[in-house]
């Protein structure tokens, strides 16, 4: 047994309103650079929908994740020799068309067009070729079921359950069902991207399980993009290196939640630690029946209150404050104690570590629309069983098609609503509601505190990295590294951003000195004005 700590996330889909704030703030923080225009470390998909990149869940086509071959775990895209044989041209790499061609608008036209009969128009321009383009797709083109009847039926999850339930499923969806699925990197326990990386540049951090790309070791073979079944590793087409969600590790290390969590309007994200047995990961991921994978994954997560676990964890070098954080972990409670959080696509066998509380609200809404009391326990329980089609869809997402755990999760959420309603209305709480879903009254109440009250400090239990290593956090980079921005590396002699990066502090010092002593006033030709860095000298900086 070897215990490792894993920083994990739970998202409560019941609360997601699809506002994309997480995506936008993430993009501003991490991917607003040249070469990353098409990249969204965090994206919010409308389900049913095609996803981003399009149909990424169709592993028959994209060959991501792991598969069992004669009982042994193997990358679906092929073993070691196959990987090397395909190194000159990766046959399963999504092209830009599968994501989307990023664009900007010719805003300058609005200002500089001569006076004329017609209003000037800012035409869309491709950020890849710089030429005018027709916008035909984007990262969330089918948002809110946009293009529904044409696009949604091609949802790979819908396709996969169509055999079981026939055309009925599509009709029901069109009438009653849609929800949002925010996605980031899963920081898997058994990451297929890491396994696929020929250079050994990708790694899982021993301390917190965050999966990262070593930019100095990446050689741009692109196998990670294929390996990841969630398509959450991206290829920076300017630097020729892979990049991915870092779980905002510079923030986590100082105890702050990730940008997507911090800015989430619905406050639906939870961050905390799991303790797990690293030596048993491969064995768990090799579970023969896909439907047993969820249980195998849950069994990997160790009880942080058990003395034997704590003792072993100390032997494995996990600091005391981390053990305490693991005991207070909201994600452990949601996934294991209450059993309401489920992983996304466990059948990919990567042991994903971003979990989801399935959405109950559409069920409630549907019930209310029929004129029933939507929060009555009996009505709710009945509705969950009656609305079997959404459950099958949810099972296709979260449990490899096994309806049981999804139903249990929804029943517990429903029970919580019904139980709490009695309290809110001043009636006697009914213990039988809790019992009917296999929970105690205390557990239901705690779950309610965590899900409904959702205090900041309850949602994010993040132990900091140790002060002894704090100097490593200096000079981690600058979010102003945008094209032409003050932090942007020059295009070096060997291509984009080659050469040794200049420490941000040094660069800022010289840039400021130069600006303050310059006699040249910078003329206004700006396409995008950067007021953030304007120091009052001349006109604001271009771009």
């Amino acid at each position, binding site marked *: 047994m070897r215990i490792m700590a894993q920083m994990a996330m739970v998202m409560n889909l019941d609360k997601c309103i699809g506002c994309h704030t997480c995506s936008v703030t993430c993009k501003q923080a991490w991917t607003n650079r040249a070469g990353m225009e098409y990249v969204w470390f965090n994206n919010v998909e409308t389900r049913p929908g095609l996803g981003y990149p399009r149909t990424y869940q169709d592993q028959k086509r994209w060959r991501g994740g792991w598969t069992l071959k004669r009982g042994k775990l193997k*990358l679906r895209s092929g073993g*070691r*020799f196959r*990987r*090397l044989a395909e190194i*000159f*041209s*990766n046959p399963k*790499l999504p*092209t*830009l068309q599968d994501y989307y061609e990023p664009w900007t608008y010719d805003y300058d036209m609005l200002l500089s067009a001569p006076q004329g009969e017609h209003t000037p128009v800012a035409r869309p321009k491709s950020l*890849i*070729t*710089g030429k005018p383009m027709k916008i035909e797709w984007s990262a969330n083109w089918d948002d809110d079921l946009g293009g529904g009847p044409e696009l949604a039926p091609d949802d790979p999850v819908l396709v996969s359950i169509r055999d079981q339930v026939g055309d009925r499923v599509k009709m029901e969806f069109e009438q009653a069902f849609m929800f949002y699925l925010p996605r980031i990197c899963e920081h898997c326990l058994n*990451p297929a991207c*890491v396994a696929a*990386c*020929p*250079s*050994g540049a990708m*790694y*899982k*951090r*021993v*301390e917190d399980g965050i999966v990262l790309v070593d*930019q*100095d070791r990446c*050689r*741009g*073979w*692109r196998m990670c993009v294929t390996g990841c079944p969630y398509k959450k590793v991206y*290829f920076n*087409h*300017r*630097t*020729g*290196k892979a990049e991915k969600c870092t779980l905002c590790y510079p923030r986590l290390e100082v105890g702050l939640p990730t940008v997507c969590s911090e800015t989430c309007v619905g406050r639906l994200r939870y961050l905390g630690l799991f303790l797990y047995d*690293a030596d048993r*990961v*491969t064995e768990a991921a090799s579970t023969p029946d896909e439907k047993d994978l969820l249980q195998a994954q849950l069994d990997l997560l160790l009880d942080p209150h058990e003395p034997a676990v704590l003792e072993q964890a100390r032997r*494995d*070098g996990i*600091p005391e404050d*981390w053990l305490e954080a693991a005991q207070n972990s909201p994600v452990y409670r949601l996934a294991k104690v209450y059993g309401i959080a489920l992983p996304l696509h466990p059948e990919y066998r990567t042991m994903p570590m971003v979990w989801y509380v399935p959405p109950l609200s559409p069920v409630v809404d549907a019930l209310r629309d029929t004129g029933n009391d939507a929060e009555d326990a009996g009505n709710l329980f009945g509705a969950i069983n009656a609305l079997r089609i959404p459950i099958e869809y949810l099972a296709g997402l979260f449990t490899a098609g096994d309806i049981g755990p999804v139903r249990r999760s929804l029943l517990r959420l429903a029970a919580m609503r019904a139980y709490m309603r009695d309290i809110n209305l001043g009636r006697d709480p009914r213990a039988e509601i809790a019992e009917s879903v296999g929970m105690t009254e205390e557990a239901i109440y705690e779950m309610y505190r965590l899900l409904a009250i959702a205090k900041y400090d309850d949602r994010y239990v993040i132990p900091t*990295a*140790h*002060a*002894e*290593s704090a100097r*490593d956090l200096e000079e981690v980079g600058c979010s102003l590294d945008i094209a032409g921005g003050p932090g942007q590396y020059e*295009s*070096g*002699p*060997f*291509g984009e*951003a*080659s*050469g*040794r*990066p200049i420490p941000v502090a040094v660069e800022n010092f010289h840039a400021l000195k130069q600006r303050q002593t310059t006699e040249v006033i910078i003329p206004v030709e700006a396409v995008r004005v950067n007021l953030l860095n304007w120091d009052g000298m001349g006109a604001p900086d271009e771009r």
Partner: protein
Amino acid sequence: MTTWDILLWAVLPYVTIAVFVVGTIWRYRYDKFGWTTRSSQLYEGRLMRVASPLFHIGILAVLVGHVVGLLIPESWTNATGLSEDAYHVIAVGLGLVAGAFTLFGIAMLIYRRRTVGPVFAATTRNDKTMYVFLVAAILLGLLTTLLASGLIGDGYNYRETVSPWFRSIFYLNPQVVLMAEAPTSFHVHAIAGMLIFIIWPFTRLVHAFSAPVGYLVRPYVVYRSRGPHDAGARIPRKGWEKVG
């Protein structure tokens, strides 16, 4: 033996080796971040699917051909009972096939680079220079093979002059006279070859050194510590950690 002979066949080889070795070490230390294939597959996949393996497999076969032809002395192959004529036929046959693969591959790659908008936009001046040198070396190599094969004009047994000269460089006793005797086509190709090695460390060609053969023996999942300075964490062992 003229001054030019000495400069070209005794001085230039060592300059090449020095620049190639020192340049590569310098580039690796100075520019790890720029060390990548700079793949353009994200922009365009269909042409690349055919052209890139064609070129790379071709050029690797060409490399093997050069190693065999230059490093293995004629006396060794004779000793195995392989006659000069038989060796010649095999070498020219395989060489032309490999050369054709390479040439066809790189022709397609350059066509793709020029005609596919995003790929062309991502092409640096450095890339263009590199292509000139690389294509020159490949074309001159093919021409030399054709001329020496006897298919056009008289054949030529380079294993009695060029190969011993090549080996003599590494003995630190360059046999300039031997190389000076060789036909002009060999001279030009050798110079083009040395030039491509001189610019090698400063172009995207360095990705050839990153051929990830270590992948075959590595555990699938790599664990790394945040750094050796961490409190609480164990000091990481050298090499890959065995987990699971």
